[in-house]
């Protein structure tokens, strides 16, 4: 059995476990499952309402039938109904995922490219002082709580300097011309994306820098230098190629963080995205929404994992072609 098949099977098992946990958690948690599943605990609900919820949710059926219904719903794309938002969870997410992706995709790309570039440069440079100060700066950024960092960015760039808008994805009045509207959107995206990039950059940078730092002691680097290969090529071709697999793994793991972890950024910048949905759902104890979000995020994590593994194999010739263990 090949490693990839094994990986896919374990992912499927993982998914099954998530589905089971998702189903049983609200039913096993202390408290009334109807209240849990409807998120109705702030307002007291009347007996009639309770009964109607009970029927809608099918809580009065035996667990096996409930589970069957749950699975049928899940595979038909029904992630539940949010009584807080009065909308299906799938719908709620459908509206928000594009917004989050607008933040997440550029952020992941930028953070990866910057992490790689800065990491390679600082790991390779002979200017110890530069390396030290950049690395220290990243350590400090890494230590700043995300909300504080986001607030500092907003206060400085949006409020003090008035360079960027304070929040949202569009201006109040969106320009009619398509290019201007696009520019408006970009202007609104710059600060939140920068925040997410700054938040997810330090671990990437540190990892790349340290790997490159130790790679500079590798014999192939010495030989490449001795052959007179330019330091640019050594950094970004030779070392890069060998730093890639662990880096891809890190980025893959980071994917889910960026999608759920943009929470703080979305709240500070008042963006209607998945993170904000999760946050609100947690505040209002909107369990169906929470469960739906977690379900989708788990799937993303699993997919990202599989993708990472495959990419790693594609990138690493040793794994692709196999090699004898040297003796």
């Amino acid at each position, binding site marked *: 059995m090949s490693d990839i098949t094994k990986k896919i099977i374990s992912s499927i098992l993982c998914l099954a476990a998530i589905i089971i946990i998702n189903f049983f958690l609200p039913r096993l948690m202390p408290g009334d499952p109807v209240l849990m599943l409807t998120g109705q*605990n702030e307002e007291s609900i009347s007996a009639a309402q309770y009964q109607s919820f009970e029927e809608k949710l099918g809580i009065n059926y035996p667990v096996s039938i409930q589970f069957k219904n749950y699975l049928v719903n899940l595979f038909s794309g029904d992630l539940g109904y949010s009584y807080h938002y*009065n909308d299906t969870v799938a719908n709620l997410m459908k509206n928000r995922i594009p917004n989050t992706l607008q933040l997440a995709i550029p952020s992941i790309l930028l953070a990866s490219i910057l992490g790689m570039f800065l990491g390679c440069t600082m790991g390779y440079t002979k200017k110890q002082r530069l390396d030290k100060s950049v690395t220290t700066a990243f350590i400090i950024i890494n230590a700043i709580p995300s909300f504080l960092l986001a607030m500092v960015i907003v206060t400085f760039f949006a409020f003090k300097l008035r360079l960027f808008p304070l929040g949202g994805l569009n201006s109040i009045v969106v320009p009619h011309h398509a290019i201007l509207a696009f520019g408006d959107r970009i202007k609104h995206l710059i600060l939140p994306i920068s925040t997410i990039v700054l938040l997810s950059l330090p671990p990437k940078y540190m990892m790349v820098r340290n790997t490159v730092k130790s790679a500079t002691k590798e014999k192939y680097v010495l030989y490449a230098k001795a052959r007179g290969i330019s330091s640019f090529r050594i950094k970004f071709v030779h070392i890069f190629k060998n730093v890639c697999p662990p880096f891809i793994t890190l980025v893959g793991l980071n994917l889910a963080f960026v999608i759920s972890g943009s929470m703080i950024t979305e709240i500070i910048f008042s963006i*209607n995205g998945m993170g904000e949905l999760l946050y609100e759902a947690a505040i209002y104890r909107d369990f169906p929404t929470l469960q739906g979000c977690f379900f989708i995020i788990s799937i993303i994590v699993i997919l990202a994992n599989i993708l990472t593994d495959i990419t790693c194999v594609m990138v690493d010739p040793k794994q692709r072609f196999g090699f004898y263990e040297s003796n």
Partner: protein
Amino acid sequence: MKNLKISLSIIVAICLFAIGFTGCSTQKTIDSMVIGTTMDIQSISRSDYYYNVLSGTLTHLALVRLDENNEIQPMMAEYSTADNGKTWTFVLKDGLKWDDGEKVTAEDVKFTIEYLDKMENAGRMDKLEAINIVNDQTIQLVYKTANIRALNDLTTLRIIPKHIFENVTDYAGFKDDAAAIGCGPYKFVRFDADAGVLEFEANPDYIGGKPNIKTINVKLFKNTDTMYMALKAEEIGMVYFYAGGIDPSAAADLKSSGNITLTEVQDTSNPLVLIFNNEKTPVNSLPVRQAIAKGIDYEKCRELFGSEYSIPSNYGFIPKSNEGYIDTAALKLDIDGAKKILSDAGAIDSNGDGILEINGTPLDLEILVRTDKPVYARVGELLQSNLKAIGINVILNSVDVPTFRSMTETEHTDVSMLSRFTSFGMNMGAGMSTSYLDGRLKSNAQGQIMDPAFASIVDKLKAATTMAEYDQAAKECQEYYAGSVPAIALYWDVYLQAYNSKYDNFTIDGTFGIVNQQTWYSISQK
């Protein structure tokens, strides 16, 4: 060079003049204003709580409204009453039109009451005997029992068009633009969820005439800090939150920015109340309750939990702006007085543990607090230390919300608790906060007063057929509260409203505060 200097100075002069000119004049019509809010509006569905509230200030009208003195004023309709408040007749104002051009009729009112009862369990139909349509513009509501305060309930009933909603079965899911059709001074234009913007424009056909602001944008913020920055940066003209104000901690900063005016609006709720359960020892004894009322450090309480504008409460605890308010004695810390009351009641500390006993039973007061509001636990701790000084032992019992609700509303376990009285809740039923305290109301009463004297006061409130009668009963009710101390409001507070200083002449409304339908006609810009 010289020419350049001259031309520059001319330009500067023109600029200064222009600025001075625009700065001095008070404009009557304002092109647009942006209201910032952290109200969580997800859609324009009528079931979206905060959108529903917002629509009440712009696009949707109720039959009547509360003015700044909490008195009922006509809004959509002139009203009259007969049968000592059993029958209410409303005559819709002439020329009211829905935004799509249809005429507003009595049918719409009837439909709204019935429809919302079905969709939202509003519970109005239970109280009504009949809804009679007299003619196109006249409608009669006949209540089962006489109710002078029936109008209070109607201030939040926003009338919706029958021709739009009669075929809508998925009320909560109806998010079409048509859901926003109202008959108020503003028309809904668009909701841009990505930008977090709701746009409204002045309704030229509104019977009250054109409001002073042409376009109102409501900008949705997810957090208050960026919203305050936007206010300081003049990106938004004012901030608004229904039944709430700005963060007291942000007040000083906003004030110091120079371009922002802060206004106080009296909070008609009681944000922090210690509710006794008058059936349970030791607080079933009046002297103990009175002693506790004297044993609490109210100043400390306000300092720690209230805003800097909070004011001391009094024994009657119904906030000042409520209908029928009377002055009662103010609550004050008086440790010696408390101790005297307790010793007069025969409380002694026989075992020397610092806790007094009456007839051998130690004064252990169990207070229920909810875990979802951590501030309650802190208040509880303050009470614990306060009351220890007068020899009463406080046991805090923290429970999660479902448990709290089942203990207080379903099981009626007769514990005392820390909670709050909302403005709406205090006005419910017979008003005067009786829905929280009347022990006969098993469904959601928290205070459990079983005293027949109190029951008769509640009945009087209910049976009032004129406002004078009601006010008399309200006076008795507050005197009862002052005498029997069934609950102690720790302080009264205000809402702070913040807006750009260039705006002026806001009107205050009993329901909505400074953002309301009247404001749009009084507001001016410097």
